[in-house]
């Protein structure tokens, strides 16, 4: 019996090749998109789920209340971690980490190690990162102990055993000992490092007393609770703990931190702290929904085409019933056919996914999977899913087809009922609703991306090359040498450039009422030429100037937002007021125009600038566009001559600034791709339905032509039905898309308005695509010779 089903299913597929192709292609595209999204979602959900003590690891985050704002640093102050250990019986261990970029040298091999991490010695006790060589309990026990990842070992030591060997760290050349080798940290961890350096190198050697600094932030602190300990009650004890340890200082500074616990395995997707390493549960949801939608569209195609063709299958159903088939057997047969189609699509999906995976990895910016065949479980799941899809998509057509009464269908009195037509229309509308909503969303995502890239940021970022001297003492000499080069227009030094990180400083600024107001001000250390270099306008007062001796220590420039936050009505009023910041006191000499020193997702925050040559390690070089490669190599040779110990590396500011939108751009690209897929599948379905309905109306078309209908009349007749459906879809999709994208845009402090023409464009695009799809069939039918078409009955 099965053999017979397969035989007839296969022959049916082959006889109606076009329909089969549309069905299989649609399902393949849908299943491939779904499978890739599944890999992405699974990967996002897998972050830091591999720690065996994961359910007991918490990340401590911190809100700091000041009179003017609530600051949200990534972790608590340095003192919290070590003091929790003694104070609470339920704490098994704490680890502090902090990211850094350290200069590492071994003989001639030198790298600015981008993924350096300072870590407490309990690191391997808390997290499940595998130490291949060395003792996990002691590897980070002493100052200047280093654990390398396998890749780092390869880079510095090749194939020789690194344990006990030494490397030179930082510009000062501290000698550090390799005490361990760990497996490369998997990509699905928020903690990323190629090199771990013992934390007490910092806390005992470089910055003694760091362990007792309650007002110094900038590390991440994790706590491992003992089994059975209650996290909530532990969290409730933390305010009293802070009060006891640091109450006086809190009052004195007027800064009140609150400590909170985040489950570490959930931090990646759910954290309220925006990490460069963090993901977004919202994107996971969005893509999951998109995946379901695409699959739905593909299933709808299947249902549509199968039920539309039911008239053809009706005769077969009738005959089978007459010769003894029961309804159950027929249902099984049709579901079997649909499962078979899905299994063919399954095989094609495997091939397509294997082909697309590398570019999808690239698009996602991470290695979601090394290959489709890497994990047989996924293939098994996909296999089962295809059978499930076959069952679901095949169930309705099977029930419809198997319910035909042989008397009716064998007498040729058969017509697809109004219910079937209504259902098909409904499904087409749903497909196009989804597609149009995706088109609208894609347009808005793209406009927003474009807006962010083309927005006037308030500073000039073109032809600006930025070199990180990492504070090398020879940087002044390097700056002088570069200034003399042809094609170098100007050079400036600073602690930060727009789009990068910057310091936050505890400050007191005289406000409009004359009171010294406490604030955490973003701070740039700059030199005299910085504002000119970046073309940042001064709206009141003056720029830093070499003519004023006091400018190096007693002058500050604020931005407009800062001035506003201190209550001044006009920037002019702030000029000449007092400041007190990090031990320096002096006057505000000028107010600069607001510029976007962070991404456009964030509002422009209050910013202060001061001259501080020791704090400036970034060298910005404005170069002319001519002969760029030779200019760069000229700068590099100056570097090699003056700072040979450090590798030369640079970036261009415009690209660097755009890097901030990397994840949004990825999001946009992924979205675009899936929107296109949705449209393609919908169109395949429309094509199938159109060609089918045209086929069915061949006789009607013939009669109409005989009676004098012109070709445009006929094309109209055949297209108008489908266009109405697309029109309804536009009406449904627009408010849905508006609502969704309105919410999405809330994440951007600076955003585009959602204007009516976006909907118009999407509507026109969808209509044109639908017309092209349908009219191809319609024209073919319209130009056919009526004599022929009349003979088909």
């Amino acid at each position: 019996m099965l053999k017979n089903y397969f035989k007839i299913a296969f022959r049916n597929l082959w006889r109606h090749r076009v329909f089969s192709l549309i069905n299989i292609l649609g399902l393949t595209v849908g299943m491939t998109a779904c499978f890739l999204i599944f890999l992405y979602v699974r990967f996002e959900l897998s972050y830091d789920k591999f720690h065996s003590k994961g359910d007991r690891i918490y990340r401590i985050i911190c809100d700091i209340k000041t009179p003017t704002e609530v600051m949200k640093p990534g972790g608590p102050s340095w003192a919290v971690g070590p003091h929790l250990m003694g104070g609470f019986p339920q704490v098994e261990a704490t680890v502090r980490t902090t990211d850094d970029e350290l200069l590492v040298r071994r003989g001639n091999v030198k790298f600015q190690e981008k993924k350096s991490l300072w870590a407490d010695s309990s690191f391997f006790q808390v997290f499940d990162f595998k130490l291949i060589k060395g003792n996990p309990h002691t590897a980070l026990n002493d100052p200047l102990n280093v654990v390398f990842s396998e890749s780092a070992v390869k880079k510095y030591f090749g194939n020789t055993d690194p344990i006990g060997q030494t490397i030179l760290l930082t510009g000062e050349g501290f000698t550090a000992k390799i005490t361990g080798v760990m497996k490369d940290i998997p990509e699905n961890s928020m903690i990323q490092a190629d090199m771990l350096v013992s934390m007490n190198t910092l806390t005992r050697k470089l910055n003694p007393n760091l362990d007792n600094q309650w007002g110094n932030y900038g590390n991440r602190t994790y706590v491992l609770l003992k089994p059975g300990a209650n996290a909530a009650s532990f969290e409730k004890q933390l305010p009293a703990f802070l009060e006891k340890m640091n109450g006086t200082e809190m009052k004195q500074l007027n800064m009140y931190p609150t400590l909170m616990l985040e489950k570490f395995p959930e931090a990646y997707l759910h954290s309220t702290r925006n990490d460069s390493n963090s993901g977004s549960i919202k994107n996971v949801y969005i893509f999951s929904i998109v995946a379901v939608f695409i699959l739905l569209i593909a299933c709808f195609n299947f249902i549509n085409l199968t039920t539309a063709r039911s008239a053809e299958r009706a005769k077969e159903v009738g005959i089978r019933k007459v010769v003894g088939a029961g309804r159950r057997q027929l249902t099984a047969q049709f579901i079997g056919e649909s499962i078979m189609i899905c299994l063919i699509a399954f095989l094609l999906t495997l091939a397509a996914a294997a082909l697309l995976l590398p570019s999808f990895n690239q698009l996602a910016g991470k290695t979601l999977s090394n290959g489709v065949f890497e994990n047989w479980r996924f293939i098994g799941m996909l296999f089962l899913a295809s059978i499930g899809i076959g069952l679901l998509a095949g169930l309705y057509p099977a029930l419809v087809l198997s319910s035909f009464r042989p008397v009716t269908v064998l007498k040729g009195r058969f017509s697809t009922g109004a219910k079937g037509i209504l259902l098909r229309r409904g499904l087409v509308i749903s497909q196009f609703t989804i597609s149009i909503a995706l088109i609208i969303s894609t347009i808005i995502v793209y406009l927003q991306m474009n807006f962010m890239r083309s927005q006037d940021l308030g500073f000039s970022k073109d032809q600006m090359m930025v070199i990180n001297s990492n504070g090398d003492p020879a940087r002044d000499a390097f700056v002088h040498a570069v200034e003399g080069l042809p094609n170098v227009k100007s050079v400036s030094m600073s602690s930060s450039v727009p789009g990068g990180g910057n310091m936050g400083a505890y400050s007191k600024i005289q406000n409009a009422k004359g009171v010294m107001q406490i604030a955490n001000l973003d701070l740039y250390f700059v030199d005299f030429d910085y504002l000119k270099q970046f073309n940042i306008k001064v709206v009141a007062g003056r720029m830093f100037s070499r003519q004023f001796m006091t400018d190096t220590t007693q002058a500050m420039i604020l931005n407009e937002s800062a001035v506003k936050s201190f209550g001044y009505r006009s920037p002019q009023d702030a000029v000449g007021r007092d400041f007190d910041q990090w031990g320096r006191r002096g006057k505000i000499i000028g107010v600069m125009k607001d510029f976007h020193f962070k991404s456009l997702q964030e509002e422009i925050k209050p910013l202060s600038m001061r001259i501080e040559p020791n704090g400036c390690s970034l060298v910005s070089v404005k170069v002319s566009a001519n002969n760029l490669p030779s200019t760069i190599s000229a700068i590099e040779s100056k570097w090699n001559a003056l700072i040979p110990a450090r590798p030369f590396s640079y970036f261009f500011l415009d690209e660097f600034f755009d890097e901030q939108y990397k994840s949004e751009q990825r999001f946009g690209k992924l979205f675009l791709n899936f929107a296109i897929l949705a449209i393609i599948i919908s169109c395949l379905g429309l094509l199938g339905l159109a060609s089918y309905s045209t086929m069915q109306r061949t006789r009607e078309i013939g009669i109409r032509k005989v009676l004098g209908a012109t070709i445009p009349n006929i094309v109209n007749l055949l297209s108008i039905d489908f266009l109405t459906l697309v029109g309804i879809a536009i009406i449904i999709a627009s408010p849905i898309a508006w609502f969704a994208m309105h919410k999405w845009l809330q994440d951007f402090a600076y955003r585009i308005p959602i204007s009516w023409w976006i909907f118009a464009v999407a509507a026109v695009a969808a209509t044109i695509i639908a017309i092209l799809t349908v009219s191809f069939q319609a024209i073919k039918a319209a130009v056919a010779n009526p004599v022929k078409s009349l003979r088909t009955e």
Partner: protein
Amino acid sequence: MIKIHDLEKVYRTEEVETIALNKLSFAVKEGEFVAVMGPSGCGKSTLLNILGLLDDPDSGSFLFNGIEVAGFNERKRADLRKRNIGFVFQSFNLIDELTVFENVELPLIYLGVKGDERKKRVEEMLDKMQIMHRRNHYPQQLSGGQQQRVAVARAVVNKPKLILADEPTGNLDSSNGNEVMELLTDLNEQGTTIIMVTHSEHDARYSHRIIRMLDGQTVTENILV
């Protein structure tokens, strides 16, 4: 074998009510060959559908082998049908996607006959119908007469007690038509009961008895043998 009494069937659309069978009664004995004749719309096909358990009467009694089957549900009808009744249609009604062999095999599959046995019986039947050489062809590749022979083969392969033929020669030329009638006569002589609807007086003459219908009722019965 068949006994119907006061059988009624009414087709209703929104405005029109058509009485297809109007208190129809007659009986067919086992081994009989009965022809049903009458003008278009007299209720012949409705009768055949009810006799074939494809359709259910509105009222009246229908005894099949002594069992009352009027009011049987679809599944029971289907079960009775596949064991006892074979159909031959005017338009052959072969499945285009299946070969000659596979078309004939179909009833045996639904009866759950084993593969070897099926092959034997189908080949036997094809041999008998002289279309063995066409066993791997598809229906479209055959002439009308050949197609109807396949249809007859399919109707009798599971050795039904009753064959219902609905204008079996309607789509055939006279020589092919005669061949099919000979086949039916042979089957009848081997014991199969046959009820045939036809427009053709010539074909009706092959039967033992002619039931003439008009407006859902029997008008006359001619006994030929």
